[in-house]
Each structure stands twice: as C-alpha cells, then as structure tokens.
C-alpha cells in the first residue's frame, strides 16, 4: 500500500515534469519562429557593407608603422620627468607602485632605486613638445607629430606584448593589424602586396620578431604580410632567367594562358582562371617592383636626408626609404620592425646608439612624405610594445643603469593621416609610473587607427569558430582627442 502511494506521488511528479517540459518546449518552438537564424546557422552575410569599402570617409589611405621592437624607454625619449633626477637612488614609494606586478627579472631585487634620464630634455616647436637630446631630428618635426604619453598595455613580457600590439590578442594566430586592413580595404595597387614587412637590427640588446606577428590568422592567406628580404633584391625570383627577355616572357605567358584556357574549356575549374591571373600578377610585379625600388629619379640629397645608411640594404634608414616608396606606390600597410630596444642594463650606452639608428630616418620619412603632399593621407606610427620602469634594474652607478619592462604607461607618436599635429596627448604622474589623464589602451589605439582609415572597428568582423572576431575583440574606444 505504501509503495503504491509512493508510486503515485512519483507518477504525479513525472507527469507534472513532463507537462511542464512540454510547455517549455512549446514556448521555445514558438519563440524560434521569431528567430529565423536560430536553427539554420546564420544567414552567411556577416558584413553590412561589402569588403573593400570604407564605412565612412577615411582620413588616411595608408599606414607606415615604425615599430621599435624591444620597448624603448619613454623616460629617455618623450616623457620628461625631472623628479626622477632629483630623487636619484631613492626608493620608489610603495604608494606609487601600488600592487603593480614586476617581471621575474626584478622581482628579487631588494630595492627599486629611482633613476632619471642621463640625457637632457628640451622643448621644441610651437607645440613646446619635450624631446630628449638623443633624438635631435625628431625634435625638429615636433610640430608635425602627435606624442601620446599614456599608451598602456596588458602584457609585461615581450612576446605577448608584441603579439598583443600587432594582433589585438596576447595569444597567437589572430590576424595582424595589416591583415585586417588588407581584408577590410583591399589593395590599392594590385601589382604589389597590400601588407609588407621590413626588418632591421639595431646595436642594442635585441628581442626576436617572428612571422606570427604578420600572420593572416584565420583570414584568407592573401592578407598575410609579405616579408621583404634585407638584400639588394627585396623580392626574390623576380628577374627573368639569363638569356630571356621580357618579350619572351610575354610570349610564353600568352601561350601558356591559351593552353590553360583550353584546359578550362574542358574542365571548367575556376582555379585555372585564378592561376592565369597569378601568372599575370607575377608578370606585372616584374615591372612594378623595380619601379618602386628605383631611386634614379630622386635627387642625391635624399641620401643626406635619410642618412648615408639608407643606401645599405637591411638598415632602418633604407627600410624607411623603401617604406616611403612602397607606400607611395599604394601599399596599404608597411610594417617596419627595428630590433635592439631592450635596455635592461647598459641603457646609457645602448640607447644613444639605437636613437642614432632611427632618429634621422624617422624624421626624414615624415619630411619626405610631407614634401610630396602625401603626409595628409599617410598615417605614420612610431613606438614599441611597452614602456620601461622609472627605477633601475641591476646595479645603479653614475655612469650606467638599466630599466625593466613597464606596461602601465609609455609614449608613442603618430603623424599625418588625420592625426592632430603638434600636440602631446595624455599625462603621467611626476614619477612617470602611472597615468593621471587621458589613458589610451592598445585597443583604443587600434580602434582609432581603423577609424582614421575609414573603418568602424566594431563593424570590421570575421566569423570564425562560431563567433565574430574583431581586431579590438570586445574592447576599444576611438580617441577623439588625437583626431584632427
């Protein structure tokens, strides 16, 4: 008897549950009628606007990114902090450091003695921008650039920070900034890659760069950055074989194309047409690339402008010159990396050498774009992956010191392409450790860069693994204060 009661109770519960479940499923079914995409996996069209078009009128058409790989010290370049000189060898107050994590390299250090710049600072231009004495040429163009002193990032070590800066994520395999732009805007010059990468090595302590930094990630591989070689022939295998003239090549390609066309008639495979187009593009590159690398039309004093090492392939100066030529020819994104900015020790010796390598050529690039009427449509960006600490790493002496990684604030500059010229944006505290006004996160910088190129960072998406990815992921705000 008891058992039957129990069963009855159970049955009621089960019936009750099933009844409720049916109601719930019924409602869900009703709801699904109003959600056309729920069960068929989406409509496929991910973009409101076709690719290759801007979302609104762009201010810049092209970007040259002068990446200073290894993280140059903001305290010896653009963020002038005289207090650090006054407080030489005194400990960094706990209240300033807060709970900031430090790297394994200084975590075991007994104290954090403050150290100021060994190099003097002066104000330049109508803007009165502070620039250190080791950048005399950049100092001359301060009225053309916008110094941002409050860039901050998330990672504290080189590889993740570098990857984060280039792709918007610390983990690898997301598309690089240049790939996103190539994807969003397409190529301006179909005879050249839309995204080119140029590498150079400085004389300071260096950090590696890897091809994952210019990866297309999940985007189509045509958007991958093309690394140029640091030799006389930046792109290999473009010359005709010895004894073959351009006319021979043309005839050969024409005949090959007609054979391919016959094959297409037989099989109808569209890849055959793609192949014909690829051959044609390679043929056009044979004239387009020498056009770009040819400097015979330019005056001799271009060498005086960029410095004489601009004639030695693989130097920063020659990469700047090549970047200008590529950009002028319509390459959407030219990415330079200059290694050697990781001054954990010997900062006093290495920093001037590094500055000497980049100072003249960086300034020359701005001047050169300007005198051709291209600066207004070309965005130039100069900076590294994070900043450096205001305290000394290792042994502090009168002659020498080092600085560890500091992601909380650092300085970069931008020029041209719709950026306000001759301003300093944002402020750090007098220790140069924390931001006190107008912070600019890397995501914000990405959003702003896309904005200047006429793209809405929230709309430039690509659906992969079931979600829409963006360069700025779910973050980023355009910084109106630096837009002209």
């Amino acid at each position, binding site marked *: 008897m008891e058992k039957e009661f129990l069963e009855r109770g159970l049955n009621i519960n089960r019936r009750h549950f099933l*009844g*409720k479940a049916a*109601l*719930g499923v*019924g*409602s*869900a079914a*009703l*709801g*699904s009628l*109003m*959600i*056309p*995409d*729920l069960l068929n996996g989406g409509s496929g069209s991910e973009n409101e*606007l076709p690719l290759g*078009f*801007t*979302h*609104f*009128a*762009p201010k810049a*058409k092209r970007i040259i990114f002068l990446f200073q790989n290894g993280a140059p010290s903001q305290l010896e370049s653009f963020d002038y902090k005289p207090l650090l000189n006054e407080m030489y060898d005194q400990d960094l107050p706990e209240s300033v450091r807060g709970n900031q994590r430090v790297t394994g390299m200084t975590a075991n250090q007994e104290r954090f003695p403050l150290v100021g710049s060994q190099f003097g600072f002066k104000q330049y231009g109508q803007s009165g921008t502070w620039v250190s004495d080791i950048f005399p040429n950049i100092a001359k163009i301060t009225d053309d650039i916008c110094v941002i002193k409050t860039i901050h990032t998330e990672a504290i070590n080189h590889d993740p920070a570098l990857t984060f800066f280039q792709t918007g994520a610390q983990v690898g395999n997301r598309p690089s900034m240049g790939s996103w732009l190539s994807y969003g805007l397409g190529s*301006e*010059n*179909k*005879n050249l890659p839309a995204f080119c990468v140029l590498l150079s090595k400085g004389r300071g302590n260096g950090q590696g760069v890897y091809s994952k930094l210019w990866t297309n990630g999940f985007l189509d591989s045509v958007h991958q950055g093309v690394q140029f070689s640091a030799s006389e022939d930046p792109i290999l295998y473009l010359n005709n074989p010895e004894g073959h003239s351009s006319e021979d090549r043309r005839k050969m390609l024409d005949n090959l194309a007609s054979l391919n066309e016959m094959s297409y008639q037989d099989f109808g495979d569209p890849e055959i047409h793609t192949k014909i187009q690829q051959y*044609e*593009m390679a043929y*056009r590159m044979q*004239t*387009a690339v020498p*056009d770009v690398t*040819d400097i015979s*039309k*330019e*005056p*001799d*004093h271009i*060498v*005086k*402008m960029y*410095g*004489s*090492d601009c*004639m*030695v392939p693989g130097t920063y100066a020659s990469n700047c010159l090549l970047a200008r030529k590529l950009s*002028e*020819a*319509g390459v959407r994104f030219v990415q330079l990396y200059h290694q050697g900015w990781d001054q954990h020790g010997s900062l006093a010796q290495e920093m001037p050498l590094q500055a000497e390598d980049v100072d003249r050529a960086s300034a*020359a690039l701005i*001047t*050169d774009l*300007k*005198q*051709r*009427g291209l600066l207004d449509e070309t965005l130039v960006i100069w900076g590294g992956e994070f900043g450096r600490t205001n305290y000394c790493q290792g042994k502090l002496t009168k002659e020498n010191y080092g600085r560890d990684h500091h992601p909380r604030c650092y300085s970069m500059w931008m020029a041209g392409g719709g950026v306000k010229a001759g301003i300093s944006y944002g402020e750090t505290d007098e220790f140069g450790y924390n931001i006190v006004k107008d912070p600019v996160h890397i995501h914000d910088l990405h959003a702003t860069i896309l904005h200047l190129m*006429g793209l809405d960072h929230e709309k430039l998406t690509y659906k992969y693994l079931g979600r829409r990815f963006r360069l700025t992921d779910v973050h980023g705000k355009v910084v109106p204060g630096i837009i002209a």
Partner: protein
Amino acid sequence: MDRLERIVSNSIFSLLCLLTILLVFEEKVFIPLWLQPIGRMHPMILHFPIGFIVLLVMANVFRSQLQEEAFEKVNKFLLLLTAFTTVLTALMGFFLSLEEGYTSEVLSIHKWIGVGVSYLMYFLVIFHRKKIIYRWSLYASFVGIVIAGHFGAGLTHGINFLTEPIFAKEEEPFDKNEPVLTSLILPILESKCVNCHNAEKHKGELDISTLEKLHAGGKNGPLWMAGNTDSSQLIARASLPLDHKKHMPPKGKPQLTEVELSLIREWIRKGADETISLAGLDKQDTLFVLAQRHLSAEKPVAGPQYTFDFADADLIESLNNPYRTVVQKAPNSPAVDVKILGRQTFKIELIAELKAIKDQVVSLDMAYAQVGDEVFDQLTQFQNLEELNLNFTNISGDRLSSLNGLKKLKSLSLSGTAITASMLEELKNPEIEELFVWNTPMSQDEIKQISDKGIKLISGFVPDEREMLPLTAPLLAGGKKIITPQDQVELMHKIKGVTIRYTDDGSDPDSTSNVYSQPLNYDGNITLKAYAYKEGWLGSDTVTFKLVQRGVKPRDVELLYPTTGIFKGKGKLTLIDDEVGNVRDLPYFSWLGFYNTPFAAIADLGDDPPAIQVVAFNYGIDQGQKAAVPASAELWGGNSKDDLKLLQTKKLFYKKEEFRDRTSHMFSFDLDNSKYRYYKIMAYPMEQLPEWHRHKGKKAGIFIDQIFFYKERPKAGSPNNKKLIAQGT
C-alpha cells in the same frame, strides 16, 4: 490543486519560457508585422499589473482587517492576476523594444527590471503558501514594479519628467521660436535630398534649394498635402520599401532615418503649418517629442558636401585595372579617388578613359607616370578635382595655366618636376591652398616670394651644406669572401662620387693609401681594409674583409655523423659552398653544430687528385651556445673510403685570452705533397669546458663552416697561421 491556479501558473510558465528564449537570442529575433501591434499594446496593458499589485499589497498590509478565508481567496486571486499581467506586459514590452529608436540606457534598465519582476512573480505563485517568503518577495516585486514603471515613464516622457518642474532646465541652444519647417525639416531635406534636386540638377523636375521652388513641387505635383500624409508624395515615396523603384532617396544613398520621417509626417499631419514653432507646441505633443528626439540624435560626422551625382558602382568597378585604382571615397559620398600605378606602363588612355566619371573625380594621383605636357589636355575635364599629384612626371610646366579652369583645386603636387617660379605665376586657381614644389629648379628666394602671396608652398627638405654626416663604409661587391686567383674583388659604395682608399697588407688605410679604381686579383689569402670619403661628408669607418682562397674544391663531401638538433646549417654542402659563415649568425644559418658526436667529413678530390700541402677548416666560438675550440683534430687519407689511414692528430687548447667570444678561426694541417683521393677530417668537442668559461665543466660543442685543400701554402696574410694554437703530437 485549484484549477484556476493550475491554468494560470502554467500559462505564466510558458510565457516565461518564451520570454527567456527570446532574450537569449535577442540579436537574432525578427518580429513579424502582425505581432507588432501586440508590442504596441504594452503601454496600455502595463497599467494592469501596477493596479493589481497595489491592491495585492494593500490586502496583505491590511490582512488583519479581513476574514482569514476571504483573505486567502482574495489574495490568491489577485496574485494570479498580477503575475499573469506582469509577465504578459514584460513580453509585450520586449516586442516593442525591438522596434527602432529604442536603444537607450534607460530602456535597458527598464527592460531588465521588468524581466526580473516577471521571474519573481512566478516564484511568488509557487511559494505563496510560505508566508514569510511570500510577503517579502511581494514587497520586493512591488518596489521592482514601481522602479520599472518609473523608467518606463522616463522612456516616453523623458527621464527628468518627474523632477522637471522642480529643477531648472538646461539651456537649449536651439531656437524654439523658429518655425519647424525652416529650423528642422529643411535641414533634413538639404542633407538627404538636395544633392539631386537642386537648381542645377532637378531630377523629376524637382528643385528644393529654395522655399518657393519647394512649394512648386516636381512633375508629380507638390511634395505634401496639408493634413493628408497618405497623399503626400514626400511621405509616400520615402515609405516605400527600399528596393522599390520609386523609393526615395534611391537605394545606395543616405536614407531618411525613422525619426526624420516621423517628424516630417507628423508635421504634415498637423496641417503643414509653416509658421508653427516648437515654442508654440505643448511639450507632450508628438511633434514636439519627435523634434526633441531628432535634435538629440547623434549628428553624423560632416564631410565635404558634394552636389554632383553618384557614379554607377559597376562603372567604377569596370574602370579598375592593374594600372589604375578607382574608388568611391565612402558609401555616402559620391566623390571618387583615382591612383595611377606603374611608371613605364603609363598610357594616356588611363586618364582619357576617366571621362565617364569626370565629375566625380576629386583626387588624381599620377606621380611618376611617364607623361609629358600632353596630359594637360585630359586634366581640364575634371571640373571637381581637388587634389592633383604630378610629382616626378615629365611635364615641362609651360602649360600649367591650363589647370586654371579647375576651380575646386586645393592641392597640387609638382615635386620633382621642371616647373619654375614664372610658370607658377600663371597658376590662378581660386581655391588653391597647397603647392608642393620640393626638388624643382626653384630657388628658396623664389619660393619665399610666392609664399608671401598667401599660398602655402611646401619646399620640403633643403640640405644644409654645412651639416656633415658620416658616410657608411665601403661594401664588398657580391659579399664573396672565398675567392680564386681569377676572381675580381670589387669594392663599392652606393653613394655617387665617393673615393675609396684601401690596404691589403693588414695595415690601417689612411690618406696615403691606394685609391680603389678597378677590381683586384689575389692569389693568396688577404686582409683587405678600406674606408670611404667624399667632399661634404665625414669619412667612413674602416672596414675589414678577410678573403680566403678556395684552393682545390672537392667534388663531393660526406658527413659521417649527423649534426645535433636544429644546428644543421645548409646540410653537408655548407662545407664547400664558398660562403664564409658570418660570426653574427652563430649558431644558425651557415654553421654545422656537433655536441654529442665528433665532426667527421670525407672529401672526395677525384680520381686524379693533386698534391696537397695544406688541409684546413674553420670553426666558430660562442660562449652562450657552448661552441668552443675542438679538443683535438685528426686528418685521415686514402684512395678508398674504406681504407683510410691516420695522417695526423693535433691537440688544441682553448685559452680565454686568445679566443674572443663570437669569433671564427682557421685550423690547418700541413702535409708534404700527399696525393690521396679521399681525406677524412675529424674534430672532437671538449668533454669539459674550462674553469673561466660561463658554462664551466659542461660538455662543449663545435661549429664548423668550411673545409679547404691547398696545393701550396697560401701567401702573406694567410689567417691559418695567426690563430694556430695547435701542437703536433
């Protein structure tokens, strides 16, 4: 179980399920037209739950005044009513929120409180028998409904509606006394319609650039009929589906927003009174509310406004080819940018073919095009051109004045052309703002004179003759450091007019050293030192090239032990590829690394081997990689690979003072005219690195790059004697 309770409770449950799933997939929800009226009933239905819950709370507060049984009945009945209407209201509200124009923060607060209260109501229905839980949840729901109601009212009346009479209002820059027509509606028409309906271009015979013309209407009659929105052309055409042929503005052009259209519609409905102003309207008047919403809407970034028409998208697409890029500036701008690509590939047709979009082209970049003055015949057709880039073209400048017809031209780039100041004088474009004249024959004085007339002349970089910059060092042409006596050794410098002085005896070159004028030949190993100088520059640093003779090149070479790990260089041919390993590349690229095995290579000199006097190899040192001097080396010889005999064994010593870090060294065996087809060279890594080493006590590795065979001992400057620390055994 009470029948009513069961029915209501189940209904609430299913409505909640529906609401939940819709909320989860909110982004994808599409409300069919027939459901929209249900959503719009939200503002009516919402009064029920408010009324009911007030009653319900009252009943509970004054519970002691009622009979126990009566209270139970009233309470349950009211509860079911409240819960059901609450959930229904929430669902309707959700539908309404999907209509356009509801995106504010206030909406979001209102929505989520409403949703929360709905769930709480179901909770109440289930637990209404547990008195304590019930009462407090009830009061919480009451508070929730009041707050949700407040924000809901904020949505329709403005969030400051309640407090407005108490606090002073913020000042409004907008002039409320100006008629709605001129202050609000005309600006909308100007931004969205006047592009095609103006004095120059009156599509459909409609010109709305002035008020009188606006009244006249177009070929289908006047734009509006006062009080009758349905017969008003303006409303009717704008309300057609986007794909409809008669929809205005046409597809692809900036559309009227919902609020703009509603505002105009409401104004017509009210009688199209041209004198009515916001000041004369009641604040709850629909027109007033719409005007407020329109004024508070975010204004789009104002770009330059163009009055010319959009070019056909297919036409623009068809004009693109590998030598010409043609793009519309932005989806809402008819302006077109053109860039000509390629220097030698330029043809005048690339410009001539742009005739079809000559009105739309506002920027034309043809820098470097191989074109002369004939281009001016083509350029005059682009009446709306604002930016023109002729940098480094072959124009003479004589015909610059033919650009005077381009009234909109703002920026002209002439860098690197032959133009002169007198030619620039001829240029009389009214709008011109910037002229780029860097690298032209013009002098700085002339540039200054023209600048004084108000045009911004950009002369660019002017070299400072007094500034002295260091030259880079000379380069070794081809970079080949392994040579034969026939090879031409060439020094070069990329900067024209540079003088190179050099020595080949190991001494430092100075102003008395030989001037390099022609390629050099050497039949021995040589150390070449050189520097460059030029008038107006500082001399370069001295550069040193150590050149090594190739000697007899083996036909083939074979490695007996594999390289360790990733240090594989370019395989066995690394040993005879004539490229000296760069110390900077250690331990990668052209270096073969051995840690666990000795290095052993058999070289084949052919079946008629020459008499050999010296066999050598070079190795690299890198403390960080534990790449060290070999502990010992052996040389074997024979005419069959299987039958080799040991010719020599040598021990080497790794001394700190004699081996700087990251250097490379030659090691050699002296022979007495031995004639073998096969030689086997072996080198053994040190078992323990010395005391002073960074990795002291650990096993060392060896890194090998090239092997050499010489018929006679290389001559002066041969590096194989200098660093030899070997002693025969």
